[in-house]
């Protein structure tokens, strides 16, 4: 082998790439040839030098950079909208929870109009409008952001979360470092969102942004983002644990394209649900899309699958305003999907408006005064139980009864998710209550609840170990509203399951509880005379009982305890319910003899605190003792002090104009609790508007007849409340029987079936 041949093989020889015979030949030659050996050594040294270069690792945050770059390219790849399509894209509706966005929209329109005029005058083009990004782009954005969020959660110390701007208190949801944005940043961001015209935003949620300036909202454990370019929303993405929360987050930042995705969902049927990996989000938004009129009932039916049938059924009922029609649709739907027919009517949600129509049909002579709509309600019939969900402005809560009476005038909720999650909150709260979940004994299930629902369902933050039961906090009672000092000697009352007065069906009582709670919240305590009619209507809607007597006959509505028994709402004998004093002076409270009996479980004189449904009860306020368990009608119920959790009426304390709000805590605790009670008052925002602290499940009560909860979940507007009352079958049955037969209360109680009895027939 000559030198030239050997030298051409030296690199391969050093790399071990030569076959053994060839390698041996090279080795023999090099051993004998100094020149070739020198070349070999120089090549070896060259290799060593190059190989000795320091190793370069990947730059920090490469994955996040890649994610952002992918999204950026997707945005740039989005086609521009043809000019003739632009207006349509810009006029997409977005659901709103309060009139404020409309005001903003109007203002924004004015601003835009002026701006366009000026630009036209200057001869420059107006704002560029783009079509939403293609579906693939939105999916990619979803993936990339979801990736980022997951990574942030997986690596708490990583800067990914900070880069995303998921700062503030929400950052902990993702395990991310707090990447707090200062107030100025948020102000600028909100200003920008407020002036956006193509995708209005919904107020009431904090708005953050990612490092690209895209508006980001975090609701509970979910997130929504509007990906923008030059102020135009290109697409919206949302994800996270709770679908409704994600949908709300998306709506918060005006991710209107996401709602359009929902429309796409209808078209794609099940495909997109898989692609998005967030079927709950898609379905929720599909429903919103239907509610907004961008899709029809037929579209909704097409997305039904065995997995989501229940939800679709619920929505169908809402849309058709008729359970019968919904059941018919479902029957056809099931048949079309090759599914077994239903054994009977589906228990499903019905819309409050349907109940009102029904009531109207039954009482054509009954006037329905027009009221300014300030809320909405739903009546749900599910699993033999009836549930009322009222969402309204806090200031109007006391007048919700009037609105119910004029249900046809009610504002129809644009947010079915409010209903679904509101009632889900009640269900979960009830389950927690039944399981005796108390502070320090939280179960994995409840942890999951919190993970799913975020802070909306979070336990009261200041629960102390060994303190109150989680949901033992009753809604305020009436007596405490009057004079808290008398409450300590009151009996527990308001056992709705024993309501048997013909003129007082259980639902009416439940409705009254609502009114009381409303009064507790309302600084004016202004309850109109329509309340009684409302009670009757609610009773009719729930139990199908002829509640006409109650309508227009407020005197028959139980308002005072019978002799020897305390009024169910904890009103002291001889005292006038506050709501009557303030709001209905012309409607005196019913005499004690007309009040329903057997609403209390303890004998007179027993030094127990009023039941949770009693107005103005003091016990829930900051009690420091241990949980008190009482048994009423064979059913245990925990009512225990719960430090750090304020009663609903305290929500009005900030305004200081409601006697109830400022009422001293009952009994010997009153003085000593003053400070703690102040701390319990739901936190008002910095503005001091008296808006209660956000939360859900803080005020919950359960009796044999009903469960009720009042919440201020984050997904509502700042000044809105949601009130959920579920009337249990026992109470319903009792009311149904009591109304036509006018049996004495005691007898009715004995005949009342136990909870879980036969389901009542659909009311229509």
């Amino acid at each position, binding site marked *: 082998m000559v030198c030239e041949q050997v030298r*051409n093989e*030296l*690199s*391969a020889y050093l*790399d071990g*790439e030569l076959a053994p015979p060839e390698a041996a030949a090279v080795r023999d030659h090099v051993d004998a040839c100094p020149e070739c050996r020198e070349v070999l050594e*120089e*090549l070896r*040294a*060259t*290799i060593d*030098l*190059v*190989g*000795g*270069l*320091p*190793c*370069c*690792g*990947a*730059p*920090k945050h*490469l*994955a996040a*950079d*890649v*994610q952002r*770059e*992918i999204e950026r*390219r997707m945005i740039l790849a989005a086609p521009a909208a043809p000019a003739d399509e632009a207006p349509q894209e810009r006029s997409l509706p977005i659901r709103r929870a309060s009139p404020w966005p409309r005001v903003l929209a109007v203002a924004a329109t004015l601003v835009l109009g002026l701006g366009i005029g000026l630009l036209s005058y200057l001869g420059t083009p107006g704002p560029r409008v783009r079509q939403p990004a293609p579906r693939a782009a939105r*999916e990619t954005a*979803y*993936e*990339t952001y*979801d*990736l980022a969020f*997951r*990574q942030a959660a997986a690596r708490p110390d990583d800067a990914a979360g900070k880069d995303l701007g998921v700062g503030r208190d929400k950052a902990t949801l993702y395990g991310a470092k707090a990447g707090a944005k200062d107030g100025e940043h948020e102000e600028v961001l909100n200003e920008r969102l407020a002036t956006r015209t193509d995708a209005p935003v919904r107020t009431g949620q904090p708005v953050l942004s990612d490092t690209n300036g895209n508006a980001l909202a975090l609701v509970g454990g979910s997130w929504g983002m509007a990906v923008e370019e030059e102020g135009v929303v290109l697409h919206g993405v949302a994800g996270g644990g709770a679908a409704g929360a994600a949908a709300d987050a998306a709506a918060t930042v005006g991710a209107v394209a996401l709602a359009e995705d929902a429309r796409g969902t209808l078209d794609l049927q099940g495909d997109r649900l898989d*692609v*998005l*990996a967030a079927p709950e989000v898609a379905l929720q938004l599909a429903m919103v899309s239907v509610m907004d009129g961008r899709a029809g009932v037929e579209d909704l039916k097409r997305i039904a699958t065995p997995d989501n049938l229940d939800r679709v059924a619920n929505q169908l009922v809402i849309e058709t305003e008729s359970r019968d029609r919904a059941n018919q649709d479902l029957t056809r739907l099931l048949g079309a999907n090759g599914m077994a027919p239903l054994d009977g009517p589906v228990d499903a949600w019905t819309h409050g408006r349907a109940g009102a129509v029904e009531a109207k049909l039954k009482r054509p002579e009954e006037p329905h005064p027009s009221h300014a709509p300030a809320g909405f309600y739903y009546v749900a019939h599910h699993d033999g139980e009836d549930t009322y969900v009222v969402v309204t402005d806090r200031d109007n809560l006391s007048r919700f009864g009037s609105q119910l009476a004029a249900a046809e005038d009610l504002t129809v909720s644009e947010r079915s998710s409010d209903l679904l999650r509101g009632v889900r909150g009640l269900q979960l709260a009830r389950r927690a209550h039944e399981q005796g979940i108390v502070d320090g004994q939280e179960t994995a299930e409840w942890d999951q609840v919190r993970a799913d629902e975020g802070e909306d369902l979070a336990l009261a933050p200041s629960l102390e170990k060994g303190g109150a039961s989680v949901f033992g906090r009753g809604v305020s009672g009436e007596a405490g509203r009057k004079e808290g000092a008398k409450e300590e000697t009151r009996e527990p009352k308001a056992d709705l399951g024993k309501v048997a007065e013909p003129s007082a069906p259980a639902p009416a009582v439940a409705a009254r509880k609502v009114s009381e709670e409303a009064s507790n919240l309302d600084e004016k305590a202004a309850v109109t005379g329509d309340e009684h009619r409302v009670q009757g209507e609610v009773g009719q809607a729930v139990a199908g009982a002829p509640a006409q007597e109650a309508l227009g006959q407020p005197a028959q509505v139980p308002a005072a305890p019978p002799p020897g028994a305390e009024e169910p709402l904890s009103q002291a004998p001889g005292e006038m319910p506050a709501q009557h004093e303030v709001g209905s002076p012309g409607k005196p409270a019913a005499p004690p003899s007309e009040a329903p009996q057997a609403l209390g479980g303890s004998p007179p004189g027993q030094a127990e605190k009023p039941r949770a449904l009693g107005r103005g009860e003091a016990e829930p306020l900051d009690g420091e003792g241990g949980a008190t368990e009482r048994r009423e009608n064979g059913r245990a119920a925990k009512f225990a002090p719960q430090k750090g959790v304020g009663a609903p009426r305290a929500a009005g304390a900030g305004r200081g104009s409601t006697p109830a709000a400022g009422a001293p805590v009952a009994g010997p605790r009153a003085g000593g609790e003053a400070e703690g009670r102040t701390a319990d008052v739901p936190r008002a925002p910095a503005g001091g508007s008296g808006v209660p602290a956000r939360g859900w499940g803080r005020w919950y009560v359960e009796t044999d007849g009903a469960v009720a909860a009042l919440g201020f979940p984050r997904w509502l507007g700042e000044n809105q409340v949601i009130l959920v009352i579920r009337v249990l079958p026992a109470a319903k049955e009792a009311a149904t029987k009591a109304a036509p037969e006018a049996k004495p209360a005691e007898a009715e109680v004995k005949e009342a079936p136990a909870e879980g009895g036969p389901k009542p027939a659909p009311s229509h």
Partner: protein
Amino acid sequence: VISRSASEDGPADGELIARVVKGDGVAFGLIVERYQDRLANAVCRLVGSTEDARDVLQDTFVKAYENLDGFRGGSSLYTWLFRIAVNTSLSHRRKRKWMPVAAGTDAEEGGTAREWADPSAPDPADPLEAAETGALVQEALSALDDEHRTVVVLRDIQHCDYQEISEILEIPTGTVKSRLHRARLMLREKLRPLFRA
């Protein structure tokens, strides 16, 4: 090196690819994390600047993401990624009208050499001398034309065998062998002063 297609402590590449194609963004994040260091070292030496390497790496993974559904598994994922990285690096240099930049100029460019430094690497006995040596080697490497520099990086830095280099660059192994030898001979001329030192 290339044969390490599956992480010892994670799902196999094929599984990750399938997940990404189905829309699992998290899986792609895992791919990035799995290969970013190995690609980074090579890219850094190919483009000669950590700042440029950052851009190239980002582009590499974005391109991979965009084309992952077209990856048929004919080669390993690493080989496929490296092919993208090499092509992106060379394209980047051409677009930037690359002028050879000696290693060590990152600081002047606002680079992040410290950030990129391998924390596990032992400290040299004489950091200054090592830095000077490294700068000279990188300068010599950067002075090579693209095809020669690439094979040197793949072999002497990434320790790929000829077959792997052949697959990455899609050239015959004989070409790899001859090109690598020529590249080393050119480097030898530039680095000879270091031999004598």
